[in-house]
């Protein structure tokens, strides 16, 4: 059942892939890069910690705790304006460095430097947006997959990340790696632990392939992901 695996190295180190009991270290794959369109913000949860993920006008991804320092409103309900993330509640704007840049109720005020959001260390690699939890890693995220990765889809799965990683044959403790899936070729799979009971599985295809071949290949990989989700959730419900 498990697929052959190309070993991942570097930035997806061992961690409590399935459990939310302790904060893990290292890189976590939050979402597909294609699902973070320029000028948008999305919510995301890793190990029970709510994050706001947004992309500025220059195309850079930012990951902050999902809480406006003003009144605690979720940033992920906000809007990207003028290269900054604006809170939905009172419109306070925070720049890429996390500093408050503008308060609509006091347009002439230069907000103090202490007024800031909490940016985390973010990166984009192999078609995924990543965040580092714990100490800043010495290296960027790495999946061990060489070449261009084309996104397929993400799936929410009602099972611990550990179960999903095991079912697809990722090495214990690894959050991402290449799977050699025979005629579908190399598939990059990345698992995000949402909390103790839920995870997200991100799927991409890697390596050469023309547009049409790619479409059929991606459809097959999407169908496989859906099967896998239903299988793992079924096993989880039976347990």
């Amino acid at each position, binding site marked *: 059942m498990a697929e052959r695996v190309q070993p991942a190295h570097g930035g997806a180190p061992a961690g409590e892939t399935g459990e939310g009991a302790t904060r893990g270290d290292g890189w976590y794959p939050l979402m*597909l890069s294609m699902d973070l369109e320029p000028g948008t913000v999305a919510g995301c949860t890793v190990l029970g910690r709510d994050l706001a993920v947004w992309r500025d006008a220059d195309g850079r991804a930012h990951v902050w705790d999902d809480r406006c320092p003003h009144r605690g409103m979720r940033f992920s309900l906000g809007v990207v304006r003028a290269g900054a993330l604006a809170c939905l509640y009172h419109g306070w704007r925070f720049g890429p460095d996390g500093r408050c840049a503008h308060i609509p109720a006091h347009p002439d005020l230069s907000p103090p430097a202490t007024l800031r959001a909490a940016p985390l260390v973010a990166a984009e690699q192999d078609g995924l947006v990543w965040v580092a939890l714990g100490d800043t890693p010495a290296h960027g995220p790495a999946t061990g997959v060489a070449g261009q990765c084309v996104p397929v*889809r993400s799936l929410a799965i009602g099972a611990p990340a550990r179960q999903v990683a095991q079912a697809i044959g990722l090495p214990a403790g690894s959050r991402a790696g290449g799977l050699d899936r025979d005629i579908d070729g190399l598939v990059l799979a990345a698992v995000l632990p949402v909390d103790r009971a839920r995870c997200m599985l991100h799927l991409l295809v890697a390596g050469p392939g023309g547009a049409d071949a790619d479409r059929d290949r991606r459809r097959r990989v999407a169908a496989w992901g859906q099967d896998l989700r239903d299988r793992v959730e079924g096993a989880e419900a039976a347990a």
Partner: protein
Amino acid sequence: MTDLVLHDDVLDENCYRVRLFLSLLGRQARMVAVNVVPGGAQDSPAFRAISPAGVLPVLRIAGVEVCGAGAALLALAHGTQTWLPRDPGGFAEVAHWLEFAGGPLAAATRARRIFLFGEPGDRDGLRRQGAAALRIMEDHLALRWLDGSPWFVGDGPTVADVALFPAFALSRDWEVGHEAFPALRRWMRRMLALPGFVTMPGIPDLGVV
């Protein structure tokens, strides 16, 4: 002057479906407010006279009173250039999703009414069923994306998208977030950007950047 009349409740998701479609079509209707919460006017003899089952919304179109969002959307889509495909396959697909919007996805509408207005019902069960319906939509759109379209049917928005949209846009009202539905998020942004899009209470108007 318009011949269209909409019996409407501003907080009702089904009424919003029709208001949204009217706006996307650029059509005006005379609005008649029905006081559902807290008035319970949907059960009054006067309202039952036009909607015997007490169903909202009611659209008066071509001299006929049409009850329920699905029927009203279909009546408005009839004869439009793009909102209702003319080819048999496309039409069948739209019919499929209209049935879905009034069937499995109705759990989402009912869950929202329990969470927002304290109506009686199986809170957790309906929330679970509503989330399961959203997952079916997510799976469909994830595959559509691989075919090169962000819409439910064909290459552009249809009345199916309008029927399905509010349940996802309002899902936070019944405590289902958008994190698990990246394909629906992508679709929602495109809905928000359609010319004539209008919002309702509970849907932030963020899309027009």
